[in-house]
């Protein structure tokens, strides 16, 4: 246990990097995902096609490969950025199709009569989606979105394999330095991850229970 307390500043430094990755990549993924989801339901066929292809391709690429591209191929192609920025780019691109799918399934979950009613009142596409469908989809979207962010939290650890000094990297270094206390060191790292994932998970489950019944 002493290992953890002795190295608490390093743990906290790693944890703050993990949080940065989570927040920046989360917001960026939310923006890209929303754009993709909007394209996916739009009336323009080529936008729909593009969004569908993007979703399928990115979803079926392993995160390791995406981050490899960002951390090693992009510099090779002449892009100069910090590794943490590369990791943020990779994580947000990788997470965006999952966000888009969560949004889309929420929109699809709104009963069709709602959209029909809105249409029959003479609302246009933007009005139907903006005033009627989206507010209802929103509450169905939040629990799956939180689950996407929980997955993102866990995925930030992969960035540790690509030169970003975050919680996982700190754990690896401390485990190498303290060969006699590997389990304690890694349990410490796990605790920090659980500090984010478990409250989020409980929050999502509670919202789900509350909102599913309300419908």
């Amino acid at each position, binding site marked *: 246990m002493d290992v953890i307390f002795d190295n608490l500043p390093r743990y906290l430094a790693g944890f703050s990097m993990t949080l940065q990755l989570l927040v920046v990549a989360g917001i960026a993924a939310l923006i890209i995902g929303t754009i993709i989801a909007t394209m996916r*339901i739009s*009336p*323009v*066929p*080529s*936008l*729909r096609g*593009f969004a569908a292809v993007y979703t*399928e*391709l990115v979803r*079926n*690429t*392993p*995160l*390791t*490969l995406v981050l*490899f*591209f960002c951390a*090693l*191929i992009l510099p*090779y*192609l*002449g892009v100069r950025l910090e590794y943490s920025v590369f990791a943020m780019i990779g994580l947000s691109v990788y997470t965006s199709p999952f966000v888009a799918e969560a949004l889309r399934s929420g*929109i*699809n979950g*709104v009963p*069709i009569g709602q*959209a*029909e009613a809105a*249409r029959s009142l003479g609302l*246009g*596409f933007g009005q*139907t*989606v903006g005033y009627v*469908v989206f507010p209802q989809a929103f509450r169905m979207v939040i629990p799956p979105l939180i689950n996407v962010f*929980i997955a993102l939290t*866990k995925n*930030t*650890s*992969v960035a*540790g*394999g690509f030169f970003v000094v975050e919680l*996982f990297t700190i*754990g*690896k270094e401390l*485990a190498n330095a303290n060969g006699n206390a*590997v*389990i304690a060191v*890694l349990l410490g*790292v*796990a605790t920090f*991850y*659980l500090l984010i*994932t*478990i409250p989020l*998970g409980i929050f999502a489950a509670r919202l*789900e*229970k509350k909102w*599913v*019944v309300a419908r």
Partner: protein
Amino acid sequence: MSGSVLFDAPGPKARRLSLILSIVVGILILAGLYWLYTILAAPRPSSGGITLPGMFDPSRWDVFANPDVWTFIWGGVVRTLQAAAAAAVLALILGVVFALLRTAKSAWIRTPTTVILEFVRGMPVLLMMLFILLGFSSGAYWAVVLALGLYNGAIIGEALRAGLASLPRGQREAGLSLGLRELQTRMLIEFPQAFRQMLPIIVAQLVVLLKDTSLGYIVGYPELIRSTMNNLASFYGNRYLFSFFAVTLVIYLIMNLTLSWVARWLSKHTDSARRGGKAGKEVPVDPALAIAQASAAARQSEAGGNPGAR
């Protein structure tokens, strides 16, 4: 919801507008792709004043004419699939065990299992791999297989538990009243049904598992990415980095898209089979009987006390 309800059946004007937009967007996308292509294909000056050829130059791709390269890549594919298959079997077994333990009667079994499952599901797979690798000095292969098996086992267990919870209570009661033991009822009556109901979710999780074997790259298991991007690229030099990346990406896409396609097919297949079966049963022969059935079903769903799942 089909997208078409969101907007009017387009008239001639709107159809023209949509067509024009579609073409404009299509051209923009193609232009973007072409722009990417030209950037990649452009020869790039390097630090020493030498100009390196573009990414699509034949000199960057000639390694693939060598059959040994393909043999090596195939080795990576096999190791990826091997780890994925072993982890999948382990995950399925653990999933059943976890689901059994979590639905156990005694709280002494249920509570610790819940805590362990929360712990396993809340921490990154990569950390678990490192844990097994360093904590048990097991070698990279077992680190990958055990960590993926444990993590996905927890998720599959949760799915199976949800499947068990959504079964009609009568299934279990009927099994017990026939004289089967608790465990027999679980294994012979309930699990097969829960498994079938959750099959699409389980297969989707196995796709995730296949993707996650790539984490072996970080803990040093020579799976596909490590074989191509690390071993081959350092053997043949950085010149081929992009080419190896492109080939790896294509191989992964082929594997994952095939499995996803199977998952989707299964989901559609089982879904339509179930729905078809139900529809066949629910054809009202006698209106009075149909009403009785419907009210019985309504009462059952009330008594089930499980409005969320239904």
